[in-house]
């Protein structure tokens, strides 16, 4: 298993698209702290911010685009045609010839991805929160270690969620487009919460409750409950994707 994880790390970190995810994820949240500093300050001054301790953390919710990209790429790179001459040929054949036990392979992929997103999430969270303190000083309460850990966990889970969905669709572009639009432009999950309060339990919304305090949804969800529900979502989707992956032709 160690050798498979090693191989999967090599594969992931050898892809230029993965580095887009890594760099974007590392820079987006800290950059937003600085760019959005005066707007955040005046929002607090005018009493528009329900919980100032969310400042900093809320930018992590956008920076996790990086983890999403990594989650998609770790799977979609296997299904990209390897050449124009051979449209049916994919890296997946080479991967399965080297690691034919599919559940073991997926486990190795999941571990490799989580290692990368875990390190990325930790560095980004630390940088973002330190920068927030520098920029806002005592305006924003100091973050508790539990909340920081929850944010990193959310980051890792989002990466795994993206990889599970990509494994189901076997198409990185569609998956990435849907995930990016949903988390930046229009959150379909958020809109759904206006229709039914149950939508607050959709993975992206519920996961944010792990580390954000003031989310405008009709139900109250505690951080531990949120973590449990989010983990269940990810585990469930991964299980379905794994069963199909095991059964389908490569």
């Amino acid at each position, binding site marked *: 298993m160690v*050798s*498979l994880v*090693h*191989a*999967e790390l*090599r*594969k992931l970190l*050898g*892809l*230029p*698209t993965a580095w887009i995810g890594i760099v974007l994820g590392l820079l987006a949240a800290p950059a937003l702290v600085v760019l959005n500093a005066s707007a955040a300050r005046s929002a607090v001054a005018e009493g528009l911010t329900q919980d100032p301790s969310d400042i900093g953390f809320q930018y992590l919710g956008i920076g996790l685009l990086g983890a999403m990209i990594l989650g998609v790429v770790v799977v979609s*790179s296997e299904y*990209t045609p*390897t*050449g124009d*001459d*051979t449209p*049916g*040929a*994919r*890296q997946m*054949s*080479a991967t*399965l*010839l*080297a*690691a*034919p*036990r599919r559940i073991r392979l997926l486990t190795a992929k999941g571990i490799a991805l989580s290692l990368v997103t875990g390190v990325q999430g930790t560095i980004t969270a630390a940088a973002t929160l330190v920068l927030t303190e520098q920029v806002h000083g005592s305006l924003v309460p100091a973050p508790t270690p539990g909340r920081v850990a929850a944010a990193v966990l959310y980051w890792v889970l989002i990466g795994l969620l993206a990889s599970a969905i990509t494994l189901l669709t076997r198409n990185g572009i569609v998956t990435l487009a849907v995930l990016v639009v949903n988390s930046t432009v229009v959150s379909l999950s958020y809109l759904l919460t206006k229709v039914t309060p149950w939508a607050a339990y959709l993975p992206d919304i519920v996961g944010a409750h792990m580390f954000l305090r003031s989310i405008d949804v009709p139900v109250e969800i505690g951080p531990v409950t949120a973590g449990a529900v989010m983990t269940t979502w990810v585990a469930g989707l991964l299980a379905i994707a794994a069963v199909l992956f095991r*059964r*389908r*032709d*490569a």
Partner: protein
Amino acid sequence: MIAIDHLSRPGRLHDVSFEARPGRVTGFLGPNGAGKTSTLRVLLGLDRARGGTALVNGRRYEEWPRPLTVAGALLDGSGAHRARSARAHLRWLAASNRLPRSRVDEVLELVDLAGEARKRAGRFSLGMSRRLGLAAALLGDPPVLVLDEPINGLDPGGIRWMREFLRSSADEGRTVLLSSHLMGELAGVADDVVIIDRGRVVARGTVEEVTAGHPTLEDAFFALTAGGHRADGASSRDGHAGGGPW
């Protein structure tokens, strides 16, 4: 040793059985769409069969802990992501099966790609991609080689090299199974032949046995497969113009 036993797959393979033995080159022949690639992909655990077994040295391919050291396979394309260099591709493969890093440069040398090791696989010509695929197959120095249409995309020099390579691999005691729809390329190099047509094995044996009663292996092939099923029932070289596999 490769043992395929009563393999079936709805609409594709019907009770396919044959063996490929060590020290011999086994040619797996059939028109396009006859089930050659499908059989090889099932053998290698890539596609699923409904019934039957396919064993590599006595075990299913998936059951070998370090499969690259048991069987090397050359399938369609190089298997390398187009953004990856040849060396990077072979390095992750080596890492996955705990093979020494030095082996990567050895196989690159062997297939004459050492000078292109840093080039991205997406920029490779078809012939170079095939050679990179072969390098990956040889990485674990396996006793069994499975090659799907290995001649495709090679220039005349490459074809000659491949024939010599296949022959010497078998002479070293390896089991060599290769599929082809190009008869002429195979006649000189194969010891044994399995002919498949529309998902069924229609002939198997040594080249001499299968050719018996026909002027050449090519004629035997036409007589035995759909390519030879012409309206007049003739199995002659005229079949070429009749939309046969050539």
